[in-house]
């Protein structure tokens, strides 16, 4: 690890100032992804701007028909939070399936989504619930947020402050865990929301995506049978040593069916 400057701003505005002032600075939330890359000397930022000391971007609250989760809320907090459990149990369950206990107690929703790992769970969680990212500059719908492999709509200097989840009628997450990392080989979130059925898939492709054919079928007939024959195109999916694209395509349907069956 190279030396770096370390900052703990007390507000998002201060963090943004620091970020603008240092071209090679990096934000840090839980550090679960960032710190290993530093240790392995794969990255050498000049400065780390730790968001841990900013009080108002942590925790969960209800705002009308939405749950607002602060960017610095850990996976463990989301998993255990009473409001989340009551209003979006599918999301609480998703958070509880991330990695291992150590990772869940450090990793944050903001860090996870900013990182946009193709196998991370929150991309399916946010996309599937039709959530909105709130940054220091604007609001970005989850549908517009995940652009590709480790690629998001965030601009330089932009900081995720929180994520707003419309409270769904019902949602459920199904995941096939990678035996080593715990990440999703495939993860599928199915939600019945006020604006319709949403099916979001992670792990399978270069970036989380919505299985629109399944959404349409489920909108007409919310049953396992309705999506029995619907598969996503394997050509667009990841093919690696852990799982072939054909397998992933198959698993998307299996998990979607299991999610629907859980209704």
């Amino acid at each position, binding site marked *: *690890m*190279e030396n770096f400057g370390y900052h703990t701003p007390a507000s998002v505005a201060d963090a943004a100032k620091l970020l603008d002032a240092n071209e090679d600075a990096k934000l840090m939330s839980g550090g679960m992804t960032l710190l290993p890359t530093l240790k392995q*000397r794969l990255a050498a930022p000049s400065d780390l701007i730790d968001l841990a000391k900013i009080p108002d971007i942590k925790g969960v609250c209800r705002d009308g028909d939405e749950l607002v989760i602060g960017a610095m809320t850990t996976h463990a907090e989301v998993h255990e939070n009473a409001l989340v459990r009551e209003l979006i149990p599918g999301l609480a369950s998703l958070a509880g399936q991330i990695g291992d206990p150590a990772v869940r107690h450090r990793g944050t929703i903001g860090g996870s989504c900013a990182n946009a790992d193709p196998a991370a769970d929150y991309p399916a969680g946010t996309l599937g619930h039709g959530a909105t990212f709130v940054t220091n500059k604007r609001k970005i719908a989850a549908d517009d947020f995940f652009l590709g492999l480790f690629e998001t709509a965030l601009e330089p200097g932009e900081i995720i402050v929180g994520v707003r989840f419309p409270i769904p009628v019902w949602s459920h997450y199904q995941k*096939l865990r990678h*035996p*080593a*990392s715990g990440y999703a080989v495939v993860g599928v979130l199915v939600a019945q929301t006020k604006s319709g059925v949403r099916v979001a898939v992670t792990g399978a492709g270069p970036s989380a995506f919505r299985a629109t054919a399944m959404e349409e079928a489920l909108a007409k007939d919310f049953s396992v049978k309705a999506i029995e024959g619907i598969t996503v195109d394997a050509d667009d999916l990841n093919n690696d*040593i852990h799982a072939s694209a054909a397998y992933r395509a*198959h698993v998307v349907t299996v998990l979607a069916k299991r999610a629907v069956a859980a209704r």
Partner: protein
Amino acid sequence: MGQFGIGQPVRRKEDVRLLTGKGQYTDDVNFDGQTWAAFVRSPQAHAKILSIDTSAAKAAPGVVGVFTGTDMKADGVGTLITDVEFKDLAGKDMFRPKRDFMTIDRVRFVGEIVAVVLANTQAQAKAAAELVMVDYDGLPAVGSTAFAASPDSPVIWEEHGSNVGIHWENRPEAEIDVHMAKAKTRVTVDIVNNRVVPNPMEPRCAVSKWENGELTMYAPTQGGRRIQQGIAKIVMNLPADKVRIISPDVGGGFGIRGKLYPELGVVAWAARKIDRPVKWRGDRSETFVSDYHGRDQINHAELGLDANGRVVALKVRTIVNCGAYFAENGPRLPINGGGRIIPGVYDIENFYFSVRPVLSNTVPTDTYRGAGRPEANFLMERLMDAAADATGLARDEIRRRNVIKPEQFPYRTQMGMLIDSGDFIGNMDMAMKAADWAGFDARRAESAKRGKLRGIGLSNFVEPSGGRPTEEMRIAVSPEGKATVYAGTHSHGQGHETVWAQLLESFLGIPFENVTLVQGDTKIMPKEAAGTFGSRSSWMGGVGLQRSAKRIVEKGTKIAANLMQSEPEKVSFDAGVFRAGTSSVTLAEVAKASYEPKNLPDGMEPGLDESYFLKRDPEEFNYPNGTHVIEVEVDPDLGKIEMLNYIAVDDCGKVLNPFIVHGQVYGGVAQGIGQAMTEMTVYDDEGQLVTGSFMDYGMPRAEHLSMIDALFNEVPCKTNDLGVKGAGEAGACGAPGAFVSAVCDALKGYGIRHIDMPMTPDRVWATIQKAKAGKAA
């Protein structure tokens, strides 16, 4: 026997220290003024080194020195050890390539050491290591075992002209073909025994200092004596007593911590070179590319059976991927380690086997928990399942018909090994009963209702244990009557602090808490110390202690006779007390007296301090064996396997401490299940290790395992006084065969007979799809 005697489930003495952070590992050791080493490792699998430019690294902040293999060679450093020699049937020697501590003009695997940087801090050393400019001229690489053995493969060692080190055979194949031809049923299997990365919890580490013409080095080892000798002779050109190796607490051995690795040689050599202490702490990424790997075989085997399902002939062809060099034991594993015991618990008279150790652009393979025996047992058990399938006999029935029967012991195998004892039918009966094999069909039907495919599998195994044929143990009793064991064995997880104390309480009546273990320091360990590996310590260390204790009693008897004014012949000893008629003295009193010459018979040395050098016939082993049964459920839609139940029946002879042996069984089983289910080592076509971290390489976790019920079928070993058989490697031998058998049983409806390990969901699902397509076609 009291609470702490032989056979009692005594809780481990060492655990409080280890679990409360009071253990002392090599990384806890620091020397004043030490420098830190960072290795420059090859990013390429196969390349010529055109030049190495160290100037920028040398000029970097804090750098004390940068050295290459050329520097070591100039100092007369030799090459690493390949402790294996074989000849083929025509008498031709095995090819033995030489490995420098740091490679000089060619790299042959990713991770091979090209240079070392020494700096004042670890961060400085690592940063400077990136500044060493190596000009590589890339060559085609080969990582795949099958491809390495084929004539089309790139050749790693041009001077040999082929990657195959030897085509070793136990006898001319034609001799067995005659018998095979008479078989009524013939079955063949082709199986891959997948490469695994051993991964002890403690990554490798070394810290050395050169002072007054002597080298002291701390490092995790499995006994230090051989490392000491290797470093002294090959690296330092010193007499062995000028090199001191100390292994404090060691976080796991598994066979691979017992080796003289190049890093150890470099750290030792560099301390003298720069005349400052040197420390190296390897990280997990280095573990993956520099610790020796395990397994990696391809087997083609054929079994011939008569009309009664009795085996008439067995033929096996093995290719083993030894990596870029033949490590200390590399090619020995499939030959002497495992190959010759392939017939396992079965009475098989006609056996042919051949081994081709191949070289490839991968990390060398060497001993790993079981060291050839898990591979051998796995192969035999797959053959037995295939034979059951072909003959229509039940899987246990085909085995019952072929196992060595009690009346055949001692049983001489066709490879000349003498199995002293065992109860192979009893193992199976016990395991099948505990697993409720008879009630399985009902459980299968219940699973089917939930859309799950349930399977049950069993595996027999036997694994010659004992390792090197010599060991030395010493017992010193203090004037207070407390004992110190100076062990030649080395505990790195096996619980010797506890078991050796139990033995001394049993042999000498010295209270358990008054026994201290000293081990792992070449300066104070017995001269003939060998160490711990190959499931040998209960036998070689335990019997060594028993004999040393006998000497303590013999000497004590003479002193006691003096003290009681009696004759030695009239003195008896029991539970720590010497008696003659109505008089008695305790061992503690005798010990105290032994340090005062006035109490001693004429000519007797003072003190109560005895050792024993135990030597056995190198071809003599003990034969732990057992039957393991696993029940699994397969989710056919995901190809995902869930382990439901595990019964391990082990005959490890007399059990010294069931609590500790259970621990050995659990750990071994976890490693066996890991190999069978999650541990996938992948080299790509460029020879890059794709699974080089815990994010990609699946170590077995609690969530992958079911509870394990470890039972004993104790048949005391007849060839040692304690009746013990090894216990450390059994789990790893039994688990893979039982696991694969169970999964294939679950999938038998698809006509699936075998799936190679690791049985990942992707692979299981693909196999099901293929089987379905084949059926439809």
